[in-house]
Structure formats: structure tokens, C-alpha cells
């Protein structure tokens, strides 16, 4: 479907920013999603209509339009289909669409799936799924068995991956207009085939995308990054399947690649630099997944203060271990630093006391430097919550001499006479009896 300018653009829902093929569908969507009474499920025609219905029939007031994105919940605005949309929102929409078309020209079409994947937390499970997702999004007209456009959610929770298989094989045939790359490339890769002339690829894609758009869109930016380097991406893509294709998962790597672009990028150069792709976190744009991307950025920043201090893998803050999940929906119960819990714990002076060290400056433990920085703030706090929380470790705890203990490598000398190295002795009630734990043995 080409971009016929209807009312200057395709019909879209003002309440939730989704695109639709035509206005009738848009209206059906609005009636079902935004103008439906939550009490009796009656579908009204407008927002105010819904408000009045609830008041008269159920004696209830509603303060916002259901299922609307923040900022678009105004119940008093009379919007029906495309009518009634405030001018400035129209313009904003137009602008956004302009940007999108430009980007899609640059074939970003790639692995938005990583986000998509995350988005569909419910179906969550199969990481393959997202690959199929965009497919579904892209071609609603095409019969995608088991994959209703834009709704990966359907009963995915462990147990139903049935939709998947049919998807995969089904895809290639679906893409008539797509150059032959497809067969070789698992799902959704078409557009991206960085090798593919993005132009011809794009238009056919667009129309097919209505429901799919919001989600994938959000990723474009991320994709754009990758896409920016078509030459890089290109060879990668190609080599992927070519690669250890011998081992069955030739599809495997290829599939995972798109699914985890950032991962893909980094894993690609597996030999060298495990690097969370900057694109994911540094990506400032697209509000589509503010929760995901931006939370990452903003959550990462405060913690960046402390964690960047720590790690050599400083790129870390962007991705792993740092509480990357949006604070609104979920939170990782894990310290910010991207090192394993054991490494974190092994740094504690308590556990280094007896370890023989032969001038091995920086063993492996990255946190050599950070130790200094990290320890101090960490230690004191640590003792506190812990006893309360678990009543566990405190056993020997009181003996901690926080801070001081610089790197690993200096354990032994410090050890016996209790930690002279501890400059800041936080008045934590961490008293001297350092040796007490030792007495256990």
C-alpha cells in the first residue's frame, strides 16, 4: 500500500498514537479501546459520550480515557476517528512521520526486536518470538498463523510457542517484493538486509505496519545506529549465516543477531570487546519506549556515578547489572555494578584476609581501582541493612574495617594488624575486633 495522503496522513488514533489503514478501522479501534465502558462494556462513540454514559447509567465518573497514553487522556475532547484532533497534535504527528520516513529510508529496519522482545514481557519467553513479531506487524494482510499483528502477547507464557514455527517459514514467501535475500535471512530481516536497496524495500513495508508501528518504531533509532554502518552491518549479516552454518544454528546466530542488535553487535566481535553497543543506551530519541530507553539512561546516570567509578568495563553502566529496567514497571534486585555477586563479595576485606598474595597486582578482579571508591560508601551501608534484612552474614560482620583496603593485591600485609590502611573509619560502630571472625577457625 502506498502512502495515500488521507487528511494528509494515514488515520491514526490520537489517544494512543497507533496507525491504521483506514478510518473505519480506526474508529472501531477507538470504540473498543478508548470508548468502551469498563463497567458494562458498552461501546460509545466519543470520549465525552463515555463520560456521560458512566455518569448517567452507573453513577460513576471517569477521569481519563482508558488505554490512552499520558498526555492524551483528555475525556472532554470530542474526537471521532480523525475528526476533532487538535491542530498542533496533527502537526506534531506529521513531523514525527517525516522523520520516520527518512529513517526508514536508511533501512533501519533491523532488529527492533530486542525492544519488542522486552516489550512483550508476557510472551516474554521465546526470544525468537520478537523476530516474528515485526513480521506480523509488517504484514497484517499476510496470513501469519498464530501471530495477530502487533500482538505478540497472545498466550505466550510458557507453554505456547506454537505461533513461532509457522511464522518463520511462512515469512519468505510472504515477501514477494523482497529481493531474494529473504530465504537466507530469517524473519524480519528483509528490510534490514542492509544490502537491500532500502528504497524498494520500504514502501511495501510501511503499509503493512499499522499496529506494528509503534513498537518497531521505537527501535528504529536504535536500529538506525546500526544501520548507519551498512558496510559493517552488511558483511556481518552475510557472514552470520555463512558462519558456523555448519552447525545447524546457522539460523540461530542469524536470528539472534537481529533480536539482540546490541548484543549482536557486541557478540559479533566476540573475540575482542564485549561492549554493550552504545546505541541502546545512548540512544536519546524516540519516545516510543521512554520507559525502556530513557529509564535506562536516567537510571543509569545516578548509578553511573558510583558504578563507573568501579569498572574497567565501564561501558557497563549502560546495560548489564545496572538497574536498567524502567523503575516504573520493574526493578532488578541486584547491586548496580556489573560484576557478579561473588566478585562483589570477594572484595570485602573480610574475605581477603587470608588469601595469599604474591604481589599479584591485579589479579583478575576488575574492581581493583574501584575498590577504594566503592568500598567506603558501600561498606558502612552494607552492614546496616544486612543484619536487619537477613540476619545472616552479620556473624563476623562487626569486624569490618571498611575502606582502606585498596586492591586485592595488598591483602596480606594489611591483614594481621587489622587494616591500618583504612583511612576513613566511618563511625559505623564497626569496631576494631577485626580478628573476631578469624577466631572461628
Amino acid at each position, binding site marked *: 500500500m502506498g502512502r495515500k495522503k488521507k487528511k494528509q496522513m494515514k488515520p491514526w488514533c490520537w489517544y494512543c498514537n497507533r496507525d491504521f489503514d483506514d478510518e473505519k478501522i480506526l474508529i472501531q479501534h477507538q470504540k473498543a479501546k478508548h470508548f468502551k465502558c469498563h463497567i458494562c462494556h458498552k461501546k460509545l462513540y466519543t470520549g465525552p459520550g463515555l463520560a456521560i454514559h458512566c455518569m448517567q447509567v452507573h453513577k460513576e465518573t471517569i477521569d481519563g480515557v482508558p488505554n490512552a497514553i499520558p498526555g492524551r487522556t483528555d475525556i472532554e475532547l470530542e474526537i471521532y476517528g480523525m475528526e476533532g484532533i487538535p491542530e498542533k497534535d496533527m502537526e506534531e504527528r506529521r513531523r514525527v512521520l517525516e522523520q520516520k520516513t527518512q529513517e526508514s529510508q536508511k533501512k533501519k529496519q533491523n532488529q527492533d526486536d530486542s525492544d519488542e522482545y522486552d516489550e512483550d514481557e508476557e510472551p516474554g519467553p521465546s526470544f525468537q518470538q520478537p523476530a516474528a513479531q515485526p513480521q506480523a506487524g509488517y504484514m497484517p494482510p499476510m496470513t501469519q498463523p498464530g501471530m495477530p499483528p502487533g500482538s505478540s502477547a497472545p498466550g505466550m507464557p510458557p507453554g505456547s510457542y506454537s505461533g513461532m514455527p509457522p511464522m518463520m517459514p511462512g515469512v519468505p514467501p510472504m515477501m514477494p517484493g523482497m529481493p531474494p535475500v529473504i530465504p537466507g535471512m530469517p524473519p524480519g530481516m528483509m528490510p534490514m538486509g542492509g544490502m537491500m536497496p532500502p528504497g524498494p524495500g520500504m514502501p511495501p513495508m510501511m503499509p503493512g505496519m499499522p499496529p506494528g508501528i509503534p513498537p518497531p518504531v521505537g527501535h528504529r533509532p536504535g536500529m538506525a545506529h546500526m544501520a548507519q554502518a551498512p558496510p559493517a552491518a552488511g558483511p556481518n549479516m552475510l557472514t552470520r549465516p555463512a558462519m558456523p552454518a555448519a552447525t545447524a544454528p546457522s539460523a540461530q546466530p542469524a536470528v539472534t543477531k537481529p533480536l539482540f542488535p546490541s548484543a549482536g553487535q557486541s557478540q559479533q566481535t566476540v573475540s575482542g570487546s564485549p561492549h554493550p553497543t552504545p546505541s541502546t543506551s545512548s540512544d536519546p530519541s524516540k519516545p516510543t519506549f521512554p520507559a525502556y530507553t530513557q*529509564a535506562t539512561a536516567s537510571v543509569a546516570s545516578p548509578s553511573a556515578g558510583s558504578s563507573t567509578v568501579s569498572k574497567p568495563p565501564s561501558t557497563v553502566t549502560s546495560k548489564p547489572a545496572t538497574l536498567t529496567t524502567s523503575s516504573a514497571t520493574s526493578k532488578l534486585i541486584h547491586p548496580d555494578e556489573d560484576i557478579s555477586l561473588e566478585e562483589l563479595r570477594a572484595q570485602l576485606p573480610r574475605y581477603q584476609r587470608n588469601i595469599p598474595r604474591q604481589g599479584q597486582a591485579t589479579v583478575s578482579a576488575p574492581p581493583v581501582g574501584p575498590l577504594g571508591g566503592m568500598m567506603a560508601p558501600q561498606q558502612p551501608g552494607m552492614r546496616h541493612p544486612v543484619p536487619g534484612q537477613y540476619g545472616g552474614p552479620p556473624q563476623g560482620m562487626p569486624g569490618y574495617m571498611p575502606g582502606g583496603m585498596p586492591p586485592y593485591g595488598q591483602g596480606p600485609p594489611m591483614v594481621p594488624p587489622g587494616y591500618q590502611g583504612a583511612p576513613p573509619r566511618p563511625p559505623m560502630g564497626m569496631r576494631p575486633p577485626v580478628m573476631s571472625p578469624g577466631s572461628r577457625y
Partner: protein
Amino acid sequence: MSLFGTSAGFGTGGTGVFGSTTTDSHNPMKDVEVTSPPDDSISCLAFSPPTMPGNFLIGGSWANDVRCWEVQDNGQTVPKAQQMHTGPVLDVCWSDDGSKVFTASCDKTAKMWDLNSNQAMQIAQHDGPIKSIHWIKAPNYSCIMTGSWDKTLKFWDTRSPNPMMSLQMPERCYCADVVYPMAVVATAERGLIVYQLENQPSEFRRIDSPLKHQHRCVAIFKDKQNKPTGFALGSIEGRVAIHYINPPNPAKDNFTFKCHRSNGTNTATPQDIYAVNAISFHPVHGTLATVGSDGRFSFWDKDARTKLKTSEQLDQPITACCFNNNGNIFAYASSYDWSKVRVRLYSLLCAERDKNTLSEINKTTS
């Protein structure tokens, strides 16, 4: 030392087996508590192999010790012996004949503990704490595989002080598993490497991680013919990936599932996501058990892709788990794993900063 001298009763670590005992959140499943647990968190558990009669459980802890209990058929546990390292013990494993126990520690050494003589001698040395240790029994060789934070994977013939082989890894070893002829190692920075052990160990393939967060634990599973065919990989983000090495249809066969998270489907409150601390496969049924920082353990069927059971919540994270050789006993260790340290600290001392952060997030989203 034949018995655990110092502590008796329940210390900071608790190991549950089967049966019935005390209170609620400490032991909500009313499982048997192993007597004389270590004084600090338990990092690893291992049951004796089928070649030995009876069930012996080995547990390594952060108190630098490794303890051995005999688990009797009535569920009672009898402390048998103990060995010490000079640093926290991170991993333990048995030899295939059940006569030796190998222990790996933060003191950068690994020891071989002969149970008959109750003597332990050092058999390996690394430049950094050794995080994983496994016994490899191949038709033409036997050795110990040690993975360390010094980014190397070394193979040791226990009779020689020098490694038979040393393989470089891209990053620190975080967890590993061996089921001949396959070995898999998960490293920092989400690295994942599969090794093949026939003739001699060699790197087979580096795999793009199916997970997006730090790797924490890995366990190999076998197919119906009892050949290793894939592995389960757990991360700190409450998720486990089931990954086959050569699946007929990777897109369809490999998958991930979420686990160890709070408030299931309730989306009103933010969900707490916990790390998966260990994964263990049932030797007979092929079902898997996962234990997490949320203090629960769950059993899953990876073929039916369903959850079989989740335990009640314990008051401490569960740090290690293990099935015995016939799958009749499941042991899990409940002890603090440091997962909440930062979070607590953060909330106590940085409330102010938290507020600002939160408001920033709100601004950007609206």
C-alpha cells in the same frame, strides 16, 4: 577433623533437604534442615555420584570451609568431615568414582580432597579466584577443569602442578558445566562458550547470548539418549534461556522464560526481578530446578514449557541447589547472596537522589 568443631545448630547458612522441622519463613517448606551448616553463605552443593552407595552431600561456603554430610534414607543428615581453604570456597565437584572431592576457592587454588584418608592437597593454581571446577572423565583422559576470574580455563591432571592445557577466555568465568563430551562456560559481559572434550578439550563455538543480562548460572541437559544436547542459562534478570546446540529449528526450539520475579501478573506495582542463582537438572526426569535471590525454588519442564512447582518464599535468597544421583533428594541452600546490598544502601543513603532520578524519568516519558 572428623566433625565440625565450632558450630552446631543453625548459623548463617541453612541447607534444607527433605522432611520437617521448624518455622515459617526460615523453612516454609518444612524441609529437613541439614545439621551443622557452615557459618557463612553456602556457595555450592554437590551430591555424590551413583558409583558410591548412599548419599553424601558436599557444601562449600564463604567461611572458607567445605563440609561433607551423609544424608540417610530417613532424611537425617550426619556431618562427616570438613576441609578448609584460605579463602571462600566457590565451587565443588566429585570425581566420577566418588572417592575424591575437588574444591575451588577464592584463594586461587583448587584442592583434591581424598575422602578416605581425609587429606586434601592442592592440585591447581590460578591468578585469580577459581569460580568453577568440574571433573572430566573421557575415555582417553581424566582431568579437572577450572574456570577462573583470571579469564582462563585450565585443565589439570591432578598429579602435576602444571596445567595440561590452558585456554584463554574473553572474560572472567562466571559459571560452567560439564557433561562429557560437552562443556559450557558463561563469562562476564554475557560471553558464552561451548567446548568439546573429545580427545582433548577445545573451544567449539562462541554463542551469542540469548539473555540480555549478566550470566549467573548454567547447567547442561541431555536428550533422550542421554547425550548432552543443550544447556539452561540463568541471568541476574530473573530469566533462564534454554538453548540447544544443534537444534533442528533454533527459532522454535530455543526459548527463554521468566522466573524469580515478584507479583506475577499484577502490573500495578513495579515488579522485583531477582537473580537466578543456580540451575539443576533432575537426573532422571530431565526437569529443571531453579533457585533465586527471591528465596524461592521452582521446578520446570522445559519440554512442555511449563512450570511445575514453586516453593514458598524463604527469608533469605537461595544460593545453591543440587539433586542427588537418583533424583529423590533435592538440596538447596538458603543464605544471603549480597543481592540486596546496593539496593538497600541506595535507599537509605540516597533517598534524595532517588527522588530526583524518578522525577527525571517522569519528565522524559510524559
